């Protein structure tokens, strides 16, 4: 029983934190499980959950057998942000609106904090593309840093962006 609980905790822990693995050629390779691709990657539908990785000089998004690779050097902008989403979403979330006595509205109060990561990149023919990802809370900065270390470019450094987000909180205190 104790062993099962330990295994379960280890599993949950691995989902919450990014997986770190050292790559001999390109420095740190980092992957983020349970990342939602909102839109923008060629060959994938909207709102697909998979694994986002920064490895071998590329951004790699894997969903089952499908794998989309974007060379990091083609990424021209990597903005990040914070948001919230409904804890119970999807079809169940929509149908919960019809629950009696305002049950659906009560459920909508439960929200999960998320991080957003967007990339603007250029394809081989020079056309601009955009893609948006939703990551677990606290992972966007690490993902941005990993992409920058792989060769991506940005106009706002990760540290400055993080500092800009924390500023309004300091004012409130």
């Amino acid at each position: 029983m104790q062993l099962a609980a330990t295994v379960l905790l280890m599993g949950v822990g691995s989902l919450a934190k990014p997986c770190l693995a050292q790559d001999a050629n390109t420095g740190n390779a980092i992957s983020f499980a349970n990342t939602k691709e909102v839109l923008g990657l060629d060959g994938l539908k909207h709102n697909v959950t998979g694994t986002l990785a920064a490895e071998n000089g590329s951004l790699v998004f894997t969903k089952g057998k499908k794998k989309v690779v974007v060379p990091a050097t083609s990424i021209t902008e990597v903005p990040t942000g914070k948001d919230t989403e409904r804890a119970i979403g999807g079809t169940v979330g929509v149908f919960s609106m019809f629950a009696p006595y305002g049950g659906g509205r009560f459920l909508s109060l439960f929200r999960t904090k998320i991080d957003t990561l967007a990339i603007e990149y250029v394809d081989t023919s020079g056309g601009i593309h955009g893609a948006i990802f939703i990551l677990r809370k606290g992972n966007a900065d690490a993902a941005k840093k990993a992409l920058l270390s792989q060769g991506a470019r940005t106009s706002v450094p990760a540290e400055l962006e993080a500092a800009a987000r924390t500023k309004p909180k300091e004012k409130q205190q």
Partner: protein
Amino acid sequence: MKCAHYRSPLLLLILVFFFMGSVTSAQDNTNPKIHASSIQILMGQSDEVKLPIEFQLALYENLIEQIQKTNKFQHLYRDGDPAASSNTDLVILHSNVYGFKKGSEGKRQLTTVAGATQIKVHCLLTDKAGKFEVAQDVTGNVRFVGGNLRVTFDFAKKVAKIIVTNFQ
């Protein structure tokens, strides 16, 4: 007896609506449809309002997807694609965001009437020389179901509708 008393004005009203409909459809038919084999979609500009970059990217990507679905053009070029300049039969879609109100998904679900997200965009379709073909203001909304980014999907659907009505 009473029923017959109301029948004639009702009939008149139906006839009025019928003729109004035929007049408007006749007006629609008079507008000549534009022909172009290719379109280039430029990234949306937001000089007047501060639009978060994720909305800008979603706007651009949804536009490309929805216009592609219309099947009105043989080639669709993205912003920055140099191949577009060599194409002679090309229209260019410019979009300038002049209004943006970021609502709250939580408020929308809780109150139904508050927290709407809205985006107002001035869309311009020009030929290569810059001559206006179509100019229209389009508003995208999310009033009830969906996240804030869905506003860009609503906007793109409306632009696709404009393209369907104006192009051969």
